[in-house]
């Protein structure tokens, strides 16, 4: 994208305009396009899909009225929430209260700058991509704390405090497991990390060595916790804290929090895909740049969406952990494990600087084995699940 812009500037399309303004304008345009044509429908459709998947898990039907199979439900919800009255409690800190949803949303939305959807499809390939990601997602905590504090509601405050403790803690294992990959790839740029992997699964960093394999699951767990997802959804635990930090919000401001949450699911999947699962890498099937770009986008999207689906599945299955258990899980198990992964990868790189093909292949087989066991378990559950008993009415 940047190259294209530079080329346009050199060819004199923006003659006379200051360079900074051109860049700023271009960035705004990109943000607008990404937001309205990708992020909003994505978060919306994720919300619809989550409700449908969840409903299927719970033997319900789920929203199926608006559009085919209810796929436009998110649009209806969005319009409804836009039309709702925007209530700000009199006791609330008005300015902070109004600002908080945007801060949360900005923290989530800004991550799309560095997500590589294809070899050409990236807003800006920063050379500090991962650092930027970690930094910008921390903004979410600030927003949640602001929401919790400014609502002037004790449940909100409790939710905000829980959230701050949780997200700040879980950033450490998440960051450390991402750092493992930075070690292996030798770069922080998202595109650089993807190109350091190959299209084949045994070339992915997931199977680079046993430590990165563990780091992936550490990252995914920590990311679920950072995204306030079940089983770590304690900041908005509806049975404990009413609705946590969103208790006092209504209308569009309320929606913004959930917009961020659902969108964040995809971001989690996208980061996991970029770092561990080979990103947009496809086998060399075509030389056509546009066709290749489309294929790359599809591959990346599906890989990332798989993890969104897993998160939905987890949400439908597991209960919620308690606050102290959450903290002890993070500090007693995940942080030490993440450190071990980091040091292990470092040692691995000293021993085999070019990586070990045999070990990668072996790890790939282990991964397949785990997947097989998982599928076996799932099929057992499906075979032993009993359908709804339907008693036929007499009349």
């Amino acid at each position, binding site marked *: 994208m940047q190259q294209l812009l530079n080329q346009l500037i050199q060819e004199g399309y923006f003659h006379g305009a200051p360079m900074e303004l051109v860049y700023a304008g271009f960035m705004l345009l990109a943000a607008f396009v990404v937001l309205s044509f990708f992020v909003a429908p994505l978060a919306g459709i994720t919300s619809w899909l989550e409700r449908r998947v*969840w409903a299927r*898990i*719970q*033997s*319900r039907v789920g929203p199926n009225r608006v559009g085919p199979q209810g796929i436009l439900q998110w649009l209806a919800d969005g319009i409804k929430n836009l039309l709702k009255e925007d209530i700000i409690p009199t006791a609330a800190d008005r300015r902070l209260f109004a600002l908080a949803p945007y801060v949360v949303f900005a923290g989530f939305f800004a991550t799309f700058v560095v997500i590589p959807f294809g070899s050409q499809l990236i807003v800006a390939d920063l050379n500090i991509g991962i650092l930027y990601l970690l930094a910008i997602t921390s903004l979410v905590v600030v927003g949640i704390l602001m929401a919790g504090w400014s609502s002037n509601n*004790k*449940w909100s405050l*409790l939710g905000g*405090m*829980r959230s701050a403790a949780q997200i700040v803690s879980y950033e450490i294992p998440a960051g450390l497991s991402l750092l493992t990959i930075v070690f292996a790839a030798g770069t922080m740029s998202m595109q650089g990390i993807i190109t350091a992997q190959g299209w084949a699964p045994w070339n992915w960093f997931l199977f680079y060595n046993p430590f990165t394999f563990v780091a992936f699951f550490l990252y995914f767990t920590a990311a679920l916790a950072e995204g306030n997802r*079940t*089983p770590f*959804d*304690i900041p908005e*635990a*509806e*049975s*404990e*804290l*009413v609705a946590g930090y969103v208790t006092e919000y209504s209308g569009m401001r309320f929606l913004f929090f959930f917009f961020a949450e659902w969108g964040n699911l995809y971001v989690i999947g996208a980061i996991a895909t970029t770092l561990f699962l080979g990103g947009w890498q496809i086998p060399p099937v075509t030389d056509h740049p546009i066709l290749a770009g489309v294929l790359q986008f599809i591959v990346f999207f599906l890989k990332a969406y798989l993890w969104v689906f897993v998160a939905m599945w987890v949400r*439908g*299955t*597991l*209960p*919620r*952990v*308690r*606050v*102290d*258990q959450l903290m002890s899980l993070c500090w007693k198990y995940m942080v030490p494990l993440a450190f071990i992964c980091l040091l292990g990868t470092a040692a691995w790189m000293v021993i085999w600087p070019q990586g070990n093909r045999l070990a990668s292949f072996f790890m790939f087989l282990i991964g397949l084995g785990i997947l097989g066991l998982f599928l076996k378990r799932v099929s057992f*559950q499906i075979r*032993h*699940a*009993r359908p*709804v*008993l339907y*008693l036929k009415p*007499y009349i």
Partner: protein
Amino acid sequence: MDETLRSEGEGLHTEDMTISMGPQHPSTHGVLRFVIKTDGEVMREAIPDVGYLHRSIEKIGEKVTWHGYVPYTDRADYLAAMFANQGFCMAAERLGGVEVTRRGEFCRVIACELNRIASHLIAVGTFAQDIGAVTPFIHALRERETVNDLMEEICGARLTYNYIRIGGVGYDITPQTCDRITQFLDHFEPIVDEFNRLLSYNKIFIERLAHVAPITKEDAFQYNIVGPNLRACGVKWDIRRDIPYSVYPELEFDIPVGTGEKGTLGDCYDRYIVRILEMQESCKIVRQCLKMLPKGPAIAKVARKFKPPAGEIYVRVEAPRGDMGFYVVSDGSEYPYRVRIRTGSFTAMSLIDKLSRGLMVADLIALIASLDVDAPEIDR
């Protein structure tokens, strides 16, 4: 925020936070209110505040006829309406010397045990939801819906049955209904296993409940804890076996007690698992009753103007929330002189204050859910 604490050493000024939990809180099952004082996440105390659902059911008893009061007893605990029906009818029968027909007794037991399954399904379902797992809740309600359908077939109502009348039951159970009940039991018994796979032996679920708020036997006796909550403390006490009524002495069933299999004896997990086991026992009882169901009328002939001789009586039945007692006084007139209902949830509420000290906020939710307190039953 009347209590101010100073933490040692640092001179940091901290205060306890007083929060009003309820009556609109999502996990206070109906309209309960707790005034909780917390130090961050840790509870200092939780004082229950009851009375939001008081409908003076006991007073109404003095104003309506004996027959006319039966529908009101439904509302005493609408999740287990059958048991309040039975309690009051048994009291009236014993006062008036009415002999219940044998078929009527079996119909009562079938209806009651089906109702117990429904009530326990709500209990474990909402328990799971309070712990944060929504799927088991909906699975439990799905099964309860089938029980409701069966109840609708038996007596025409899904929630407030008014099925058990003085002298027997309102409607006979038809053979088709018997088949359907068997069909349901065949379906339901494996469901319990599925439920166990999904929830009971889930690691997070066990971690959340084991060792949380254990009730000792002494506490249970002192605070008059009854029913599954008492049995979870390891006390094998069940009115159906120990003060037998109806046809329960003829039936074979176990009384599941808590064993502390995952944590301390009498903790939240024990209270949960006892309910799961009781559902299986109820299934056994219903199967036996269906087999033994005798021929004959479902209801005895009782005078329309029922006037039991003057006297008083206390009758106990084993409801899903424990020993439900009816103290009824008759002065020989068309109306009861006094009706008093004793329920399990009310006494269970009194223990919450003692148990809640030092728990986390999330544990309080688990505790309330594990005691299976039910707002209508507390206030009546």
